[in-house]
């Protein structure tokens, strides 16, 4: 186990669909499954609602990792939201990898409302893989503290 007080801890933003994955997270808690406390949960109506803007905004704001989770294919509360999402996630993940973002910064998974144990397991996996990558630097926006006419030529 890592020492939570001294070691660097990744911050991971998770977007959970309200019908399956959020309930799955709830079940993990109720069932007292242990998982790392590195995730911050944001509830979304459906994984199909996930705009790439949200994922990139999380990265820009300094998230070390992003995880999006929805219902298993075929189980979507809105019939097909996660099917559309799956196509988008595939392309977005590949594009982010293509521009040089580390592979495990942005991850996708399916967790149903009955899979509390699996939720805990996925969170452990994701946290460990992001921990291995270290703090995020790429795409993170740092507002420079000082004024930089000196750097006026080179962009920030």
């Amino acid at each position, binding site marked *: 186990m890592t020492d939570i007080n001294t070691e660097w801890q990744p911050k991971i933003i998770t977007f959970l669909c309200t019908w399956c994955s959020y309930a799955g997270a709830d079940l993990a808690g109720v069932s007292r499954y242990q998982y790392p406390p590195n995730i911050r949960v944001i509830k979304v109506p459906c994984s199909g609602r996930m705009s790439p803007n949200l994922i990139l905004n999380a990265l820009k704001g300094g998230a070390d990792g992003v995880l999006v989770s929805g219902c298993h294919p075929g189980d979507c509360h809105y019939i097909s939201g996660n099917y559309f999402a799956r196509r988008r996630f595939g392309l977005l993940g590949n594009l982010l990898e293509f521009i040089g973002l580390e592979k495990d910064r942005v991850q996708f998974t399916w967790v149903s409302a009955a899979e509390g144990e699996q939720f805990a397991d996925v969170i452990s996996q994701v946290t460990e893989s992001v921990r291995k990558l270290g703090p995020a630097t790429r795409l993170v926006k740092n507002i420079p503290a000082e*004024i930089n006419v*000196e750097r006026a*030529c080179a962009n920030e």
Partner: protein
Amino acid sequence: MKTLKLSNDELQGWLASWQQKHAIYAPQLGTDASKPQFHDWALLDGDEMPQLPTGVVKNSIKRFYLPQPQTMGTFSIDKRQADAFIIKETLPDSAKKQILLGARPCDARAILLKNQILASDPYFQAAREKNIVVGVTCSDQAPTCFCHKTGASPLAFIGMDIALSQTDEGWLAEIITPRGEELAGNGAEASEAKIAELKEKRDAIKQCSPAHGFKEQPMQEMYDAPLWQGLSDRCISCGTCTFLCPTCTCFDIQDETSGNTGRRIRIWDSCMTALFTAHTSGHNPRGTKLSRVRQRFMHKLKYYPDDYGPLYCVGCGRCVRDCPTNIDIREVIEDLQS
């Protein structure tokens, strides 16, 4: 004003001594061969005088005077702090000078024209204080250059602290301002003949440069001219012309935050974009593309000259060269005159 005659080696000596004290920015060719090759401003390494292209480089020296973005102030958004949401103004440090080497006469003049509008702007004035312009006059003009048609000259030195002119044997350095004098190193005074020769060249150009404006043309007539329709038909509303333009000065102010700190920034705005002059109410006095295209030309050719005299265009030709749809301000001027 004194004029010095420099060999290439002597100029290199000057640059070497400047490098000790100041940052020098100069137009340089990109080093990455896989990318499109063009000259742009970059920090100068070493004391070699860079090879300048004919005409202007990609970006104007505007970015040294109006940085993109300019931080105007910083603030905290941490509500536990007593000074939360109070903006602390930050002025650029003008004591540390930097040298803009190889600025063309059009760029140097543009800063003076801008100064009319930004005379009481502390950020711009601090940047003027900070930047020392060591310009290089143009012996040739590129096909897109037309400074001689805007009341300027490719051999002009206004707005520069030191003006360098290339000759067969080396350089003639005209020391124009006290700041330039401080900066200039040793060199032999140029001979009377050389100075006369340069003056002659200069006069020759001035004679064929009609500094025409549109002062006599009635504003309403220009405003209602039919040509704006055709221009706006093909304008794609990008900001290329305004962002590359050395004189364009319009800005937008935005606040941005990260974590608990934030800053207020001033960024370039462009009259080509739909958000330009949009009001919070939703009303926009320039709601159509036509009115925005017209605004750019009217500001440069009519509104500014009416207020301050010269055209607000220095003829660098950057907008002509890089406009995706080839909107050519020279054609617009001709059309308006006829």
